[in-house]
């Protein structure tokens, strides 16, 4: 559906995006992950034909962004970082205007406006002036604007930024409900959002892609060995620790801050070993209370930080050389 090959975008002096390539197939939800200024927005702007690429080939639904921009634009719904709304218009007027811009036939416009309002849950504010809407509603109107012509591809630039947690959850649900019909690319720097909504993640740092993978694979990446969180009551921390270290397959035990009267540890297993059953048995046999035992996967956050950090280390290394 979307094909990016060797995309480079240079501004006057600095390179915003450097030789990135990725593909998105039909129906996928792809999360674009990166710090501020990593090149997410630039990439999206190239995809939507707002900016031309400096080098490389970008095509959407088989149409090149430079050669057939109108065809690409017809097939894309785009929600920029700030929703492109006119504060002086009411919601219906605004969506009607957008519907006409997107080339929807005149006798279809009213129906499409109603549908988009329905899907984005803005029907109750249809006749309100957009300038008077809250940020959350404005964002939803922005989303309604993006889906009004039912485009096969949706590009959403930080769709949940600036929303409160409740609104963020609603926005995520909304996006999830759009999946299936649309191929979606969304950018964010909120990692949990990617975990919730996306099937695939593109991590981008300083204009370069550092990882393209599914969320599950990213989690699995560094999980050859198991990490277990364990909490025990009814014993002093020192003796619990000693006992845990003796369990076969345990590589390392690190104590954590627990509540009063509890001993809490992070236990790292050796590679390819299942340590949880052994740990549980050891605690119970010693006559202590096992209050918590769970495997912790490395959070996406850590993976992300590690990936982007190692990248910047490389850079500083290059500079010192």
């Amino acid at each position: 559906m979307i094909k990016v090959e060797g995309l480079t975008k240079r501004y006057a002096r600095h390179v915003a995006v450097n030789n990135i390539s990725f593909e998105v197939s039909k129906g996928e939800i792809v999360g674009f992950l990166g710090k501020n200024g990593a090149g997410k927005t630039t990439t999206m702007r190239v995809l939507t034909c707002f900016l031309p690429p400096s080098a490389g080939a970008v095509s959407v639904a088989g149409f090149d962004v430079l050669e057939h921009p109108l065809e690409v634009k017809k097939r894309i719904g785009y929600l920029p970082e700030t929703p492109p709304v006119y504060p002086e218009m009411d919601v219906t007027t605004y969506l009607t205007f957008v519907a006409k811009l997107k080339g929807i036939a005149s006798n279809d416009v009213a129906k499409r406006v109603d549908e988009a309002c329905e899907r984005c849950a803005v029907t109750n504010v249809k006749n309100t002036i957009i300038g008077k809407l809250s940020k959350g509603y404005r964002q939803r109107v922005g989303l309604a604007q993006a889906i009004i012509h039912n485009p096969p591809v949706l590009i959403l630039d930080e769709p949940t930024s600036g929303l409160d947690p409740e609104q963020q959850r609603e926005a995520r649900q909304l996006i999830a409900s759009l999946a299936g019909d649309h191929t979606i690319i969304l950018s964010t720097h909120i990692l949990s959002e990617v975990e919730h909504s996306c099937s695939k993640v593109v991590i981008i740092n300083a204009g370069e892609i550092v990882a393209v993978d599914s969320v599950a694979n990213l989690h699995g990446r560094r999980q050859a060995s198991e990490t277990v969180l364990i909490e025990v009551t009814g014993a002093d921390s020192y003796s619990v620790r000693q006992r845990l270290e003796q369990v076969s397959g345990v590589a390392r035990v690190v104590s954590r801050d627990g509540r009063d009267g509890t001993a809490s540890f992070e236990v790292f297993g050796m590679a390819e070993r299942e340590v949880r059953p052994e740990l549980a048995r050891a605690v119970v046999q010693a006559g202590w209370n096992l209050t918590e035992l769970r495997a912790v996967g490395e959070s996406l956050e850590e993976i992300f930080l590690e990936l982007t950090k190692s990248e910047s280390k490389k850079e500083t290394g290059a500079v010192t050389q």
Partner: protein
Amino acid sequence: MRNIGTICGKELKAYFASPVAYLLMGLFGLVFGFFFYSAAQFFVNAGVQSQMSGQEQPMSVNEWVIAPLLNNASVVGLFLIPLISMRLFAEEKRSGTIELLMTSPISDWEIILGKWLGAMGMYLCMLAISALDIALLFAWSHPDWRPVATGYLGLILQGGTILAIGTFISTTTKNQIIAGASTFSICLLLWVLSWVSSYNQAGWAQAIAYCSILTHFEPFSRGIVETKDLIFYFSAIFLALFMTSRSLDSLRWRA
């Protein structure tokens, strides 16, 4: 065509959804009304005087009232038209809605023509206020309608030129005040360029004077439509809109 209509309609609505349209129409009505009153009063006084001195001469309403009025209207337009054009692109750039327009399946030319025509619509509404005053003359007197028609044609062409220049300048900035002030200054300069020819007869001076937008208006107010003036206005409008399209395109490359 449909897209041009969509953009044009949106622009017109934007003027009338804010106080801008009513303010401009009100201010223009006020200023033009005063000019009208003064010109009519002057005409009446002159008429009475010539009767009293016994040297009655036929006095033309067209020559005494309408022609100077339309000339004044063109100068008032010079001040007010930049206020119409300044928001066209500057506002979209500031609010980010330019991204919506430029990622929609419409061409740059459709955006530009739509916006320019919308601004023209606003300008015509403003001019319509002056037509109320002129209509009074027709009610109480019998002026020749032809110079009035050509005068309005001239006003529309001159307004279209200033609006096109303003549209171009509006694409270069996010700041409406900068857009308005630059448009006003440049149009003022284009107006007074004609002075050059009064103290210098060289060829280049004549060429510069030719670029003055107001000297081309003058014949229209006297009922004269000359091809060279029409060509001047049409080519100026085209040039300015063409520069607008280049500037809009460069937004993509400069970002």
